[in-house]
């Protein structure tokens, strides 16, 4: 009888700390929003406060400066932050990269990078997508070739969030080209290799993209022109990066789902408060009408379902359950999380009427944020493909 939904004392305290850390920025919310949304500046003060409270070490073991509380701890933190209307994609990216290094890196790499992630010094971005290889990672062309203790990198990545503010990048490359792999009849995912790359390396140039969807952060096309990366920055074995990569993508999706749960709570709070105050006909608050109540009640029901699934996914990841099981819960949580967040923003806007579109009420800008969740970090279609193939055992469709 081990099924237990009760949070432990530490988990409750951790959630409270996450709230307390973020709440101290509440009085400066407008100022911060102006900075992040309008001027697209990185909210370093929020990052520092989270670091000081120990959140970047929450999922890392004590020997690397962490507290070993697991990915679940970070999922709680991300949920609480989002519930207060604070999103930060770099937290999610840094967490996924750190966990990838922890699970696949050499001892030397772990010692070099993890303590500085734990204390908030290093920020990481993540680069896999290329213009000609989106969903299909096997087709990437960015090459890494070994030369005298270095790997020399050439190619380009696109849609890379936060490449300007991150100190390092976890980069997915090919050490054997896709063409060669196909010709030799090797598995298509063979020949991928992961590297930690200093974003300030010689030969890297960034071009900002006119994209939307991530609050206050730009996406970039990143060009690599003979960029030299020390050989010891290889994460995992050469050519065998695919397994490390596919496992690394899980934390990103779990945290994306956690942010969706929090976001839906943020929307509900705004909508419920508004519905209780706003009177249109007679002295009846609009919240008394079922047409207003029921959609919000539905959001709440979906929210709890996604919360449970998200915690379960984080739990499965922390417990190191078999990859397909972790992948199944993770993808399910991410799928339903995106749908929840879209629904929550939609229903909240419905409740607020015209004010739903006013920047003063903090909803309108979320439309792009939640819609992005359905497409990235992984699209809805690819999740359905995954569940069909790996969980239901149906033939692969593509």
């Amino acid at each position: 009888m081990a099924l237990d939904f009760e949070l432990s004392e530490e988990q409750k305290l951790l959630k409270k700390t996450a709230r307390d850390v973020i709440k101290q920025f509440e009085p400066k919310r407008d100022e911060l929003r102006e900075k992040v949304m309008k001027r697209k500046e990185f909210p370093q003060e929020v990052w520092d406060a989270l670091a000081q409270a120990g959140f970047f070490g929450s999922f890392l073991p004590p020997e690397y400066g962490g507290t070993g509380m697991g990915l679940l701890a970070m999922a709680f933190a991300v949920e609480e932050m989002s519930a207060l209307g604070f999103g930060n994609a770099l937290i999610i990216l840094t967490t996924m990269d750190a966990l990838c290094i922890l699970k696949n890196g050499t001892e030397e790499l772990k010692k070099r990078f993890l303590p500085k992630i734990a204390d908030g010094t290093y920020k990481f971005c993540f680069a896999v997508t290329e213009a000609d290889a989106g969903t299909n990672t096997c087709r990437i062309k960015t090459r890494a070739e070994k030369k005298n203790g270095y790997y020399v990198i050439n190619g380009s990545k696109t849609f890379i969030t936060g490449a300007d503010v991150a100190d390092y990048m976890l980069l997915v490359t090919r050490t054997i080209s896709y063409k060669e792999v196909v010709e030799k009849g090797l598995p298509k995912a063979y020949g991928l290799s992961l590297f930690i790359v200093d974003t300030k390396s010689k030969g890297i140039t960034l071009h900002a993209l006119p994209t939307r969807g991530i609050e206050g952060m730009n996406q970039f096309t990143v060009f690599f022109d003979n960029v030299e990366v020390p050989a010891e920055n290889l994460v995992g074995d050469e050519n065998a990066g695919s397994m490390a990569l596919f496992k690394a993508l899980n934390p990103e999706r779990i945290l994306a789902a956690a942010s969706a749960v929090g976001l839906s709570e943020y929307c509900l709070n705004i909508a419920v408060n508004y519905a209780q105050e706003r009177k249109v006909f007679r002295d009846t608050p609009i919240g008394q009408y079922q047409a207003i109540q029921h959609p919000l009640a539905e959001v709440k029901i979906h929210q709890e379902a996604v919360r449970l699934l998200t915690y379960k996914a984080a739990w499965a990841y922390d417990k190191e359950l078999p990859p397909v099981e972790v992948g199944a819960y993770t993808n399910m949580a991410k799928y339903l999380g995106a749908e929840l967040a879209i629904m929550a923003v939609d229903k909240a806007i419905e409740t607020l009427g015209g004010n739903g579109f006013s920047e003063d009420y903090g909803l309108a800008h979320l439309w792009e944020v939640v819609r992005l969740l359905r497409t990235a970090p992984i699209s809805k279609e690819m999740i359905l493909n995954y569940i069909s193939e790996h969980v239901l055992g149906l033939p692969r469709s593509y």
Partner: protein
Amino acid sequence: MKILVTVKRVPDPDMKVRVNAEGTGIVEDNMKFVINPFDEIAVEEGLRIKEKKGEGEVVIVAIGPSVVQEQIRAALAMGADRGIHVDVDSYPDPLNTAKLLKAVAEKEAPNIVIMGKQAVDDDYGQAGQMLAAMLGWAQATFAYKVEIADDNSKATVTREVDGGLETIEIDLPAVVTADLRLNEPRYASLPGIMKAKTKPMDVFKPADLGVELSPVLELVRMEEPPPRKGGIIVETVDELLDKLRNEAKVI
């Protein structure tokens, strides 16, 4: 320097409290419970005094059913050293609270007891004063600033009083109650939360402390305040004065 700090478990003041249908208490389903905010300030002050002195022990005491251990643990996660849980089924009235605290204070013999000026659930604001009187110690309520003499014999406390601040000097041991502006409490860091797991916590029943509870207050009924009526806009100053004088009867 031994500092005894009291914490009470109260409903989260950020949440809306509703009275139950029977009028016997509040609806506790889905409520979050936290350390009484004034007690959190008291914990912070205890920690700051210890840090400033460079030595000492901050001991947390909470009274109530076993769930109050959550709030003790929260204070330990902020940095306090150990906890005492006085295990009773429900939260006693201020007089009985003071009796239990007196027994704990006599057992622990602290240099100072720091409490919140009141608990935000029932808002009595009496336990601190009663405790000081029972112990025969000095008291400084509504503290705005606390300074402890180098030899721990005295404290200088600035108090929030009607219309301003008042600074008094008291002999230690004493009871100090914290007001809102005394400090801004720190939050529990994650390493703090992990450390708190292994900090000691003693549990006593009132009988272990030689106290027999004898309630002096009875809760007859609890009801929600009447909803606030909408305001009106008056046309002239004369009309305002008239309403204040004859309707509101406040001038």
